[in-house]
């Protein structure tokens, strides 16, 4: 696994998709400098590439969602996961989650919320809005490892779906393989809602 490589899919002509170097690029959002340092280390030690920002506004800026229509460099900064604190001044983690899920370019990116407060209605609200998971602070290595596993298994499933649709496309016409990883590919749907509901109830039972 090469350091710094983002997720890449190699598609030999007419063949199956192989996923190489599954190193996730994580965008971590937290207004606390201490927590940013800790989460960054937790992620790095779990072999993730990490970008930390101090606010929701900065996160949107980084993603290019702050009003600028510049989504052209999507590939360069492909983010595989967003981990955000809930209570932040200005845009809360929940506000950030909503903005990401409302964006066609980024709604596929899994978002994990962190909070020091174990408030069930808050947790439910975040999961309902599409958060992948909810972590109670202080965050531990085991939490990060678990999240990484979850994300990787979701991405593997997505690759499988892509592989099937690619096979169909390659059979129909010669198509540039790089276009299959675009976010506007209509054949790549959201993670099936049954899976999301399942993971929601699993999370809930693990929190109780």
């Amino acid at each position: 696994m090469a350091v710094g490589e983002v997720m890449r899919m190699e598609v030999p002509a007419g063949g199956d998709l192989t996923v190489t170097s599954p190193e996730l690029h994580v965008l971590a959002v937290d207004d606390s400098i201490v927590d940013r340092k800790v989460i960054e280390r937790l992620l790095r030690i779990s072999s993730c590439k990490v970008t930390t920002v101090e606010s929701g506004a900065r996160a949107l800026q980084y993603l290019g969602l702050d009003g600028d229509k510049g989504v052209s460099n999507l590939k360069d900064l492909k983010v595989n996961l967003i981990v955000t604190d809930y209570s932040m001044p200005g845009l809360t983690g929940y506000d950030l989650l909503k903005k990401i899920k409302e964006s066609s370019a980024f709604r596929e990116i899994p978002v994990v919320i962190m909070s020091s407060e174990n408030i069930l209605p808050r947790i439910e609200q975040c999961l309902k809005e599409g958060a992948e998971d909810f972590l109670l602070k202080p965050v531990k290595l085991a939490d990060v490892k678990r999240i990484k596993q979850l994300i990787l298994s979701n991405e593997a499933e997505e690759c499988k779906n892509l592989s099937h649709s690619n096979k169909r496309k390659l059979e129909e016409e010669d198509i540039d393989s790089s276009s299959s990883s675009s976010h506007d590919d209509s054949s790549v749907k959201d993670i099936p809602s049954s899976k999301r509901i399942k993971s929601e109830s699993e999370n809930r039972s693990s929190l109780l």
Partner: protein
Amino acid sequence: MNTVIAQLQRRFQDYIVSLYQQGFLDNQFSELRKLQDASSPDFVSEVVSLFFDDCAKLINNMSRSLERPENVDFKQVDSGVHQLKGSSSSVGAMRVKNVCISFKECCDVQNREGCLRCLQQVDYESKMLKTKLQDLFNVSFKALQNPTCSAARATNTPSWRYNSSGGYKLD
């Protein structure tokens, strides 16, 4: 050569165990130690440094907010307490974190006197912890810097895990 290292390591272990025993540190501190390795050998002292800087800044801000009895900005104080509680929890600074719990209660009922007492306590506890940890890092520094033992430099000193029922086990 090895006995010197062993002795220093032993001192390190005993010292850190006593900090857990006295409630200065909780399990989160040992979680942080897991994140330290040859590629990031100063991680714990770096985080802890950031914490103390952050602490001082927050205490200063809260002190100013509490200064004039007729014009206390409890929202500001509450925000400061929340941040302090969060960061102390993230580094395992248990005593500081516990004071923050009482501190928040005083804020909620707008008890300025209570807040001032808590502020003083938080200041005391953070300074106390800082002294303790400086001693700890001194011991570990000596243990790891011994030139005759490169193994000591490369590896983490074995870590003790303090569990909430009061027992210790070697990781």
